[in-house]
């Protein structure tokens, strides 16, 4: 038997299992954060019954969803109704393949990682649109169309805001990008405008307040999820929180040095210890950004839908293009070194 092949298969099985299993606690932790942090900000107690200080509340919620009856509206398009949560979940889960957790802890370190990430995450639009259409419900349909318009519009500034970073580092690979940041400082100082555009667009892309036009509870009930129940609804929820985690992770990887510590990386930490050290910093930074997103939800009201669309096309897109040109000219004039 070929040992190298066996080792490769073992690595694949391990990576796939870990990533898929990671989506479950990630969603639970973020839901718990959302309940607890917002409760504290509203001067409420929040969940405090299940487990010490209520930390198992979201887990119990998850199992409750698993045991709930799964109804399908009579007039719904049954096959697409089932496929929609799968599509949304797949878009989120597939993009986890390229997340750089730590040196050596990237499931598939593509040389076009950034392009792959945006290509796959963009597919969740299809799922939401299908969900809205298949439900045979006017709220769902409106929510689905709104989400399509919103996510499609914000995908343009989102992808263009990265180009400045790509020009600077000269690579589309996440690991190499972080390697560049190790030598030249985090991209946060090089690309503040890119960071701003990316942050706003990423909130809109994962449908977080103040851009949660898709669900807009007070206007559209629950948007495309209105007719869903049971585990099919559960997967939409999973996907939403996993997408928030992924977006924060990518934000950290692109602008905040990924697995790098705020001070120089200790050179003696190599191999497994270095990986653990990297994982610690990556998760710490990522959850800080998740917490900021939760904080925004407790603070900001929803943006009006017409202002929302206007901002993507009239403000963020021209700004991203200007940022891109200034960066490119600066790179050529000052001869900034790439990877």
């Amino acid at each position, binding site marked *: 038997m070929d040992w190298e092949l066996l080792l490769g298969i073992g690595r694949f099985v391990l990576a796939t299992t870990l990533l898929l299993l990671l989506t479950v606690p990630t969603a639970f932790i973020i839901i718990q954060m959302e309940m607890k942090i917002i409760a504290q900000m509203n001067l409420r107690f929040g969940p405090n019954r299940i487990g010490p200080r209520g930390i198992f509340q979201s887990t119990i919620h998850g199992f409750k969803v698993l045991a709930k009856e799964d109804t399908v509206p009579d007039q719904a398009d049954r096959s697409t109704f089932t496929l929609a949560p799968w599509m949304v979940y797949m878009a989120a889960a*597939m993009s986890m393949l390229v997340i750089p957790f730590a040196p050596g802890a990237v499931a598939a370190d593509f040389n076009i990682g950034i392009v792959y990430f945006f290509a796959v995450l963009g597919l969740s639009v299809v799922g939401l649109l299908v969900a809205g259409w298949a*439900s045979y*419900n006017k709220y769902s349909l409106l929510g689905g169309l709104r989400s399509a318009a919103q996510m499609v*519009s914000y995908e343009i500034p989102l992808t263009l805001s990265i180009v400045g970073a790509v020009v600077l580092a000269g690579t589309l690979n996440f690991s190499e990008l972080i390697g560049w940041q190790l030598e030249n400082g985090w991209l946060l100082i090089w690309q503040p405008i890119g960071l701003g555009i990316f942050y706003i667009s990423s909130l809109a892309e994962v449908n977080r307040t103040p851009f949660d036009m898709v669900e807009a509870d007070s206007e559209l009930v629950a948007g495309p999820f209105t007719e869903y129940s*049971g585990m*099919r609804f559960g997967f939409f929820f999973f996907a939403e929180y996993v997408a928030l985690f992924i977006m924060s992770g990518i934000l950290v990887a692109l602008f905040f040095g990924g697995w790098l510590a705020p001070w120089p990386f200790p050179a003696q930490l190599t191999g497994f210890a270095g990986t653990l050290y990297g994982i610690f910093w990556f998760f710490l930074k990522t959850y800080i950004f998740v917490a900021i997103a939760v904080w925004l939800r407790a603070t900001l009201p929803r943006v009006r839908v017409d202002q929302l669309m206007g901002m993507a096309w009239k403000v963020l897109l021209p700004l991203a293009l200007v940022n891109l040109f200034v960066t490119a000219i600066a790179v050529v004039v000052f001869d900034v070194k790439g990877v």
Partner: protein
Amino acid sequence: MDHTGLLYVIGFAFAATTFVFGTILFSWLITHRRKRPQKGLPYESGVDTIGDTWSRFGLAFYLYALLFVAFDVEIIFVYLWAITVRSLEFQGIVLIGIFLVILMFGELYAWKKGDLRWQ
């Protein structure tokens, strides 16, 4: 050619699909189901549905999709240029500038026509 990355994508897609439908199947096995005629009705705030849901809807959505297609194809091109900026130098910047200016004309046209205004 190294196809490991591609195999990862395909394999992971299979695993994730199994996870999703396995969980839904498991949930289907352990839940109780009781059919009531009211459960199949669409939920529209308790009011009976008027007319067909799958009918015509606003043109605004379609225009955004059209603009998106133009820009999204362009972004792939910009990415290719972005990693070769250093070797193409100013010539590359000028060429991509011309390309983007032409594209921005399209957006300005849509802007002037009022298509970027939500109706």
